[in-house]
């Protein structure tokens, strides 16, 4: 059949148009508006005066902003690689199980993932309550006295990271399990015939073939954890919020509590740039390693 290239292009444009329009309207336009707002001193609602890059100047000398960048980075370090490693380890173990035992254990690990963050908060707040929490028994055993994890600054981020890994691990485990099932069984059989040990099989077959999944998990985790907000907000509420401030929380606080729409947008632009740079960088780095 003869095709007219021009009509073909037309059809293609018409087919992608709805997506492009909605994407432009719901994503590109608000992003431009955010950058525009960051150059004003506007409140949360309503117009503001154009103040150029004043907000950006303020941001770079703002100690709370620096703290929030540092805390976000610290949280990312505590969650992304450890979380992915834990998920991989669990997936490797779960994949050795068969039948209902596997389903049971898998659902046990997946269960926290379906909980809303408020429930996660309530469960862990109850577990770690300084007066009545049952986790205070082991804490008191190791530290010597009960510790309010959420009101002791050095404990806060590791605590939040631990809960986040517990909470969000189920999804990564599923991804790893899918990856493990995609590795052809013949490879292991061939390796066994060649006299490979289990350690060698893990290092030479399983891990290299899981690399694309690992890359995916790390990227998803990185973007997700850079946007950390809910857990930190809930656990810190009322206490030393500045000492444990993370970037999205700072955006929220400036916009909704301090009514500083302009400055809030400035911090949001900063986070946007950071997320874009890091996800591109990470993807490139991991791709290079993967094609080696």
């Amino acid at each position, binding site marked *: 059949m003869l095709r007219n290239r021009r009509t073909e292009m037309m059809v293609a444009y018409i087919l992608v148009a709805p997506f492009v329009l909605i994407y432009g309207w719901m994503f590109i336009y608000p992003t431009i508006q955010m950058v525009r707002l960051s150059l004003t001193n506007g*409140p*949360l*609602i*309503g117009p503001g005066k154009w103040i150029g890059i004043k907000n950006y100047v303020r941001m770079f000398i703002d100690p709370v902003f620096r703290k929030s960048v540092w805390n976000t980075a610290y949280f990312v370090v505590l969650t992304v690689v450890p979380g992915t490693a834990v998920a991989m380890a669990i997936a490797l173990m779960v994949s050795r199980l068969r039948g209902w035992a596997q389903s049971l254990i898998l659902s046990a690990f997946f269960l926290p993932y379906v909980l809303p963050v408020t429930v996660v908060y309530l469960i862990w707040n109850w577990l770690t*309550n*300084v*007066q*009545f929490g049952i986790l205070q028994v082991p804490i008191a055993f190791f530290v010597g006295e009960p510790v*309010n994890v*959420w*009101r*002791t600054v050095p404990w806060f981020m590791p605590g939040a990271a631990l809960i986040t890994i517990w909470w969000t691990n189920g999804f990564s485990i599923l991804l790893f399990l899918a990856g493990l099932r995609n590795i052809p069984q013949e490879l292991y059989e061939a390796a066994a015939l060649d006299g490979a040990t289990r350690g060698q099989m893990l290092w030479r077959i399983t891990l290299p073939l899981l690399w694309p999944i690992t890359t995916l998990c790390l990227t998803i985790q990185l973007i997700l954890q850079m946007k950390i907000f809910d857990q930190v907000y809930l656990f810190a*509420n*009322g*206490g*030393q*919020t*500045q*000492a444990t401030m993370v970037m999205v929380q700072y955006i929220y*606080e400036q916009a*909704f*509590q*301090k*009514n*500083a729409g302009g400055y809030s947008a400035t911090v949001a632009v900063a986070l946007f740039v950071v997320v874009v740079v890091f996800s591109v960088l990470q993807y490139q780095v991991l791709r290079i390693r993967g094609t080696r």
Partner: protein
Amino acid sequence: MKLSIKAALLAAVMFATAAQAKETVVWWDFLGGGDGVRMKKLIDDFNTEHKDSIEIQASTLAWGTPFYSKVQTSTAVGQGPDIMTYHASRIPLAVSESTLTEISADDMKTMGLSKDSFAGATWDAVHVDGKQYAVPFDTHPIVLYYNKDLLAKSGLIGADGLPTGMTGLDNFDAALKKLKADGNQYSIATVTADGSFAFRTIYSLLCQQDGDIGTDGNWFPGDSSAKLAKAVQVIADWVKNGYNPAKTDYPSTVALFTSGKAPLMINGVWEVPTMTDLKAQGKLFNWGAIEIPALFAHTCTYEDSHTFAIPNNVGVTVDPAKHAAVLEIIKWMEGHALFWATAGHIPANKAVTESAEYKAMQPQATYQPLVAHGVFDPKSIHAGVASPLFDAAGNAFTPAINGESDPVAAVAEMKATLDALQ
């Protein structure tokens, strides 16, 4: 009487309408706890009584910042409710954002209320620059809850059946020492995990020394900084001496008190229903609640007020019939505030607190007189519940009351945070 007023109202505002239609009033509140249950009952009663004329369609939203940002954003686009509950302490910010409609003198007359219906500080708290923006429904201060059985054991209950020997900081600390020595795990339970909650106590103690929190530019006038540090030191000392649990959150302090592990507790009057209900189930000791004693020069307690406010929905022309219905609701609620008092809150309407029924309510009637010398949040757009001021208090005071930082340094830090607000 009520019917005739309503008829007059309707006649006055509904002359253009031939038939009387049932008016639907959208209501938003942030009352989620025990008081929320009571408010729902009041709303149901109202709806039953007005089933031919007015219907309240109520929604309860999350207390604090979520409620206020929703109100602010929705009124800006004309999608706000017709009536809402509002904290008096949040009115200055709301007015600066044009979120609220002014309550006119005519409105007050229609509702049969006036300046004389309310305590001075409460009345003042709903005004900004001489204009009234809300109708106070209650006053909710913090009070001192006590375990009568344990206090009696330590000889701290007087002949009148109320706690005694607690006036003045030295006496109060001596009482705490005695309670601790008599084998109580803690002497007093105040929230120490949340400096912004502790701020209510600290602010009361500041006021007791005639200290003040000002507004923008001059946050701590005169020697208020030193007095504020002194107030912080009081709680820090309780924690240091083991009288008060360290880094303990709100629910835990209530649990420590109700389980008899701490014979005293400073908390809001809204915990009264918790005690009443437990007592009714036979699960609580003899208890009471009194005004926080004068630890310094005189008594003075932090309080806030739940008020009724009418949002300024941008672009929406107010229908007089709707406005009349809203006023009728406020009037009715103010008249039925006695039931609201069971939630612990002190009805703002003096006609209610002066009634014989209210005077028979305990412990409400015991602590009610404190409204005569209460102190509200400073009138600043940065003050009020869940405000930057509370936030600054949380950041500065949480470590200070738990002995992790020096109170004087904490006050300086708080001042720096407040000065940086813009």
